[in-house]
């Protein structure tokens, strides 16, 4: 019943505001083709592809330096070992037989971009629960903000468009907005799960990560606001 309602609602948005939906869909399609199929990724200081190739070749243990293929002489930091993302990618490559390049440079960034837009669509519903037109406009503006927003190598859109397979990109485009939404809705357990996911996919260098910080700031904001309301009522 619920599923049926959701489908009907999506259909009605597309039927009621076809131009906005079409422009947004075309822009997303352009972003996928242009960034993931027509341009090389920005690898910078990332060794995910090398690590995936090493895991596929040597097995699931960090005994070989991904950058050289030679056995480690001194070793590897433990913080590198706890990152699960390369293992996940290597497992997918092994199971599906797809090449690491195709998975990392095309499929995963595409999925991350779509996931990011899905999270923002939840934001649209949260911000404008009764107004589908505003939801559509909001989503179009998010797509536009992504399109024109890759002006430095640390903006969320740059990370998704040019190194979408990295944990940092998943964190910036999916986890942070999702965790913030969970915090505002008071779903602290879900936000804590986001924090745990961040620790597994981003090298937080023994820190707690950004999601934990967001949780703390939102909690502080809510507490301050509650106290303020109480005082005003008194």
């Amino acid at each position: 019943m619920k599923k049926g309602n959701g489908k009907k609602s999506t259909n009605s948005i597309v039927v009621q505001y076809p131009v906005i939906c079409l422009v947004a869909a075309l822009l997303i399609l352009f972003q996928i083709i242009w960034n993931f199929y027509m341009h090389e990724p920005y690898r910078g200081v990332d060794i995910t592809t090398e690590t995936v190739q090493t895991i596929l070749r040597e097995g699931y243990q960090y005994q070989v330096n991904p950058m050289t293929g030679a056995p480690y002489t001194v070793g590897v930091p433990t913080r590198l070992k706890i990152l699960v993302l390369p293992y996940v990618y290597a497992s997918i490559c092994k199971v599906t037989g797809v090449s690491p390049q195709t998975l990392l440079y095309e499929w995963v960034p595409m999925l991350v971009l779509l996931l990011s837009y899905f999270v923002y669509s939840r934001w649209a519903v949260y911000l404008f629960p009764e107004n589908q037109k505003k939801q559509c406009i909001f989503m179009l503006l998010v797509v536009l903000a992504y399109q024109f927003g890759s002006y430095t190598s640390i903006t969320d859109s740059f990370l998704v468009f040019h190194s979408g397979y990295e944990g940092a990109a998943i964190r910036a485009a999916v986890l942070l907005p999702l965790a913030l939404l969970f915090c505002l809705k008071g779903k602290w357990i879900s936000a804590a799960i986001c924090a745990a996911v961040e620790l597994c996919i981003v090298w937080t260098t023994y820190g707690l990560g950004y999601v934990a910080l967001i949780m703390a700031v939102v909690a502080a904001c809510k507490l301050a606001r509650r106290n303020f309301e109480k005082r005003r009522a008194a």
Partner: protein
Amino acid sequence: MSGQYLGLFFAALLFLWLGSKRVDTDKKPLFCYSIVMAVVVLCPVTAWVLLKYQTAFYTYSHLFLLIPMVLVLAWGMTEGTERALEYLPGQPERAGFARKYRKLCEGVALFLCAMLLMLAGTVAPAAEPTARTENDSKMPSEVLEVLCTLETMENVNLQEEVLLAPDEVLEYARAYNGEFRLLYGRNMWIPELNAYTYDTYLPELQEIHTWLNPFNDPFRTMIPKVVEENMTPAQGIRSIAESGCTLLVLEGAQYENAEVRNALDQADNFVYLTETDEYVILQKRK
């Protein structure tokens, strides 16, 4: 002029604050969070605390990811578009000219928002240059040609060979195939990558790297690095032979250099194996 999203973000916040009476009570924590996070990131004292929190591995600019910029921009602009239309004559439910006029104004408002985002952001596809895709492996064709050649040659057993090549080839070798063993990896010329291993390189290897890549520098100035300190071709070839390298890839122009050819002939350590359009592949004599 690019990268002014922060300015737009504050404009959006100001706009939302001015109309805060219309913002639902349950959305106000988002408003508070955005202001607090922006202040915390921009204030030097709190930013210093955050820098300590995120550790020295990340830079100050990474902290801006904590500010929900896209979210607030889109929220503010959506509200702005709607409120601007409230000043238009005619009722939205009315059919006919007034309705069409209203839709046109909506389109214009959205177009202006898009222009604003474009002017504040960038029309360039990326801040860092990324090359056009030339093949499925997402690497330059001339590099792919070398790696494919090495991979398919019958008298080359990748598991037993140690490859040395110019940086542009080594950069992609391990990402292309996990069987390649390199004399040194990308962390030789990208020091930040040393964070991924405790292993370090000997000074001799660094000298070999400098000799093999005289034009390699982060700013791509095409000025050779301290030429007078570089090894001579004879010293370079001897060092490479002693380093454990068994497969040597040289740029065509470098191989054609008379001094390098003389050094190779005199040392007699490496034999010509094959060549591609851009590179020559040599193998250490067994």
